[in-house]
């Protein structure tokens, strides 16, 4: 109710317009994925076909799609779990510890936010080749972890800072070690931020394109975004099938978003709205 007595017409108009701009392509993806290849060319692009069915989904599910899906799951889980654990430990150290080393580490992570991934892919490619990891899931996972760490540490550290000092003090009085305090006290209390970081990093890795493009080669290592791209080249005449694969590849993300939306949104706004 910010603002006042009169309804905010301008704001409402822009909001509705933007809603249309956002939703038309989304609507189009869904209705197109339910068409057959021939009805796609015969019907109005913006109207659902009367004979809508899930044939294209079946077609996609029977292609190599499940394999790419699995690759994406492996890469995403393989990145998110270590990232969250490592970033949590680092954030805990930065908040609880003192000394020049930790101040320096914190500075390094913060400046890491400014390193664009694109700019360093060539040396990353070199390192991956030298480690003999080219064309394996690890080739994508290792750099993804590194690039997910700075923002994760930032968000988690901001959160751990808000844990009341007395709680740490009472753990100490009870004789708990720092290690035990971290896992038994800080970890459960940081849960909302851990969800934020997991969902955000999961999204980034699941949708990542550049690293899979340059660090893998063989079709059976492909992740979904890369597969969509090659799919589009292969089945350029079968637009409905391509759209069905877009829907299928986005499905897990929608589930993840539905589960962690509140934490994701509040975590991100807390992180950036300062």
């Amino acid at each position, binding site marked *: 109710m910010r*603002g006042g007595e009169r309804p905010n017409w301008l704001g409402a108009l822009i909001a509705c317009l933007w809603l249309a701009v956002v939703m038309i392509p989304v609507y189009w993806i869904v209705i197109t994925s339910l068409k057959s290849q021939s009805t796609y060319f015969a019907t109005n692009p913006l109207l659902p076909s009367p004979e809508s069915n899930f044939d294209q989904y079946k077609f996609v599910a029977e292609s190599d799609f499940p394999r790419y899906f699995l690759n994406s799951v492996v890469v995403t889980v393989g990145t998110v779990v270590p990232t969250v654990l490592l970033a949590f430990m680092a954030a805990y150290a930065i908040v609880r510890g003192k000394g020049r080393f930790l101040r320096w580490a914190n500075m390094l992570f913060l400046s890491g936010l400014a390193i664009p991934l*694109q700019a360093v*892919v060539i040396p990353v490619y070199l390192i991956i080749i030298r480690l003999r990891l080219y064309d394996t899931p690890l080739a994508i996972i290792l750099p993804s972890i590194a690039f997910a*760490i700075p923002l994760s540490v930032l968000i988690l550290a901001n959160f751990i800072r808000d844990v009341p000092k007395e709680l740490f003090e009472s753990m100490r009085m009870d004789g708990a070690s720092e290690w035990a305090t971290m896992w038994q006290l800080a970890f459960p209390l940081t849960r909302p931020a851990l969800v934020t970081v997991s969902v955000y990093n999961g999204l980034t890795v699941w949708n990542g394109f550049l690293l899979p493009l340059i660090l893998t080669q063989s079709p059976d290592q492909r992740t979904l975004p890369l597969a969509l*791209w090659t799919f589009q080249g292969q089945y350029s005449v079968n637009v409905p099938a391509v759209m069905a694969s877009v829907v299928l590849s986005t499905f897990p993300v929608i589930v993840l978003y539905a589960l962690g939306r509140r934490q994701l949104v509040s975590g991100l706004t807390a992180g950036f709205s300062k």
Partner: protein
Amino acid sequence: MTAAPSGVHLRQPASRSVHDTRVGLLAIPALIFFVAFAVLPLVGVLLLSFSQWDGIGPIVPAGLASWRSVLTDPALPQTIWVTFLLMVVSWAIQTPASLLIGAFLAGRHRYREWLAVLYFIPLLLSTAAIAITYKALLDPNFGLGVGLGIPLLSQDWLGRGGLALGVVIFIVSWQFVPFHSLIYQGAIQQIPQSLYEAAQLDGAGRCRKFFAITLPQVRYTIVTSSTLMVIGSLTFFDLVFVLTAGGPGDATRVLALDMYRRGFQANLMGPASVIAVILVLIGLGLALLLRRLGGGTPSHSQLDGA
């Protein structure tokens, strides 16, 4: 952490510093990853820009050869111009749009929360999926223009230089305005309500309040959001790669794409690294500039109305 959990061992206040050093060990695994795959590559890209490498064979020092070849390339000004245009125009569209939408969403109505849920959808799709969708949606024969029956929309959007760049800018906004609206929404909700109430008593209208209170109060957020937009726009690779591959001609050939082409298609890692270094330098320069613009004066605005 190497030390075993030391159970019931009670610590003296004096042992506090020892305690802290060991806490520091917890940061090491994250640091190792970060240094190995982000800091070292940053140094590496600088070194590679002074060498010659085809991506497979040995790496040989080459002095300034790569720099000379990139800087004298007649196509470079066009690439930088396109990158710059994309950055500035997409910033100029996204910032007011995100601010207005963010301000609207900041109102505490239930339906606005639902709007926010829907607005977020573009952020869930991969850039590859978005590019593929728009490619089909903008098809002159089977796309949106035909669907709406508006011949004006049935253009060869991706086949004409200026239009293609416009399409890229539009899609970038489509993809990222929701994110920035969300940031602004959060910031605007943190503004003390008392400021608005005071303005209300003074008889200020909505417009007046927006420009006199909301805008000054979120200026640090504007800097953060602009920095993210500007730095982000330097690295639009996926979208351009899938949507236009730089074309038609080199109308949408941005720096990041140029780097990929030189490095991974032409196997000239030296010149590609030069482009990468240029990207890093432009990014750093802009980040510092924006910080100076935003942080030049202390936040006296916070004191004004309170």
